């Protein structure tokens, strides 16, 4: 769920806990699936930078990528042995899957929408996301169009209704 909402750090923590629980049990199919989900999270371009730290340092990104590939290899080997065909195909096809959001919102638009819901102004959103004031304006316009809402208050209600806040 945290991954679905784009909360990458939180999702990573949950996946790591899930791995521990599955290993302890053991629960082999779920452990393999968790390896895949963790790999997908680490390799996702929309969440990767968040996981590598605010600066998105090259070293952090490389470490995440190496970790992701390790998880992916483990998952593929396990899926093959257990004959978990759909998961094997998903893992072999490439793990980068952009999360889907309601009304066709992009990851960035969801981030802006969350800040709108928190009552932030365009100026504050721009500062928080390190983007220009004008870009925020474009995002807000797209959000209102896509969600078919008339203003920021309605958009915030939409966000709450869709569990995006």
């Amino acid at each position, binding site marked *: *769920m945290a991954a*679905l*909402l784009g909360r990458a750090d939180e999702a990573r923590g949950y996946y790591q806990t899930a791995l521990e*629980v599955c290993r*302890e*049990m*053991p*629960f*082999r*199919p*779920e452990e*393999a699936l968790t390896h895949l989900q963790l790999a997908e999270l680490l390799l996702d371009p929309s969440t990767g930078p968040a996981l590598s730290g605010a600066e998105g340092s090259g070293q952090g990104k490389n470490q995440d990528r190496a970790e992701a590939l390790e998880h992916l290899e483990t998952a593929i080997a*396990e899926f093959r*042995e*257990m*004959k*978990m*065909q*759909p*998961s094997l195909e998903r893992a072999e096809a490439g793990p980068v899957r952009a*999360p*889907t*959001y*309601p009304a066709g919102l992009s990851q960035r638009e969801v981030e802006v929408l969350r800040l709108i819901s928190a009552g932030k102004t365009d100026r504050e959103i721009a500062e928080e996301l390190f983007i220009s004031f004008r870009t925020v304006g474009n995002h807000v316009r797209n959000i209102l169009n896509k969600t078919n809402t008339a203003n920021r208050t309605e958009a915030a209600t939409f966000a709450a*209704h*869709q*569990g*995006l806040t």
Partner: protein
Amino acid sequence: MAPEALSLAEDLGDSTRASRACGLAVTLIYRTGGTEALRTSEAAQWVERADRYAKPGTVERAVADAFLALLRFYNDRSEEGVAHAGKALELARRLDDPEAFWQAAHAWLFLAKAPQHGEEVLRLADELAIRPRTGVSAPRLTSTMCEIGSTFLAWGQRGRAEEVWREMDEVAQRTGNPTALLFSMLANAIFASLDGRLEDAVAMGQSMSNRGGELGISGSAERFSSFASVRPLLYLGKGDDALLQVSVFHRALCLAHLGRQEEVMPLLEELLLARPDIGSDEDETRTERDISMLEAAVLVGHREVAGLLLRRFADTGLRLTGYIHNT
């Protein structure tokens, strides 16, 4: 046999024997037809008779409450069902009758599957795991052991589940009791699935179904076979086969695994958004049902439904769903 026994007891004015005769009839109906049989008018009639003849504070009263618990629960009155199970257990604790106690304990473990009962159920499972087994029949013992093991599994205590289910298998093999043998097969299938021997688990589910037919308990056998097979079938990518074996509450999960998103969304909304009391103390919806729908909601990206369900399990220490479509 039960109608004759009841008639004889009625002629003698013996309410204890009359209630017991009714209990015997319910047990046979349940063991042969499984929980589906509890929705029939025949089952309702026998349970109501058992209830009518049972005197307050007696073993028959505790047993009748345990039956009422099952009957209400499987006729869409789950809150009343769990309340009857609690009442049966409370009374059975005060009586010196091991069979009645284990029956009431089984009803509680079997029905109180909502997350708010999790810790209480674990405490009872802890207690039963070390309680003497003297005076308890093999079917009662094994059906309760199945629930004890499932509870331990739900809390991530696989070692303890294995221990209890090993004992259950010994009783099953020693007595050759048909229901006990099915429980034992179910336990083996669950471990096969946990260990990633998925095709073995599916094959075990199929043998349970076949064996149940031979033993004359096909209703229960089909149900157990589904508990054991659905999850490994989904892992193996055989969602169509899984879909044939599930109730409406697990349909969304199978459809989500099959990628039939357009069917999952309305189904989840129909089952969940109209449910008024999700996550309240009165919500007796079984954990495995909501976990199944939570998984479906996450798979199709239905944030509203996923959020509603996730809140229900936020503060529980539950790790798995036990033996039913285990995950």
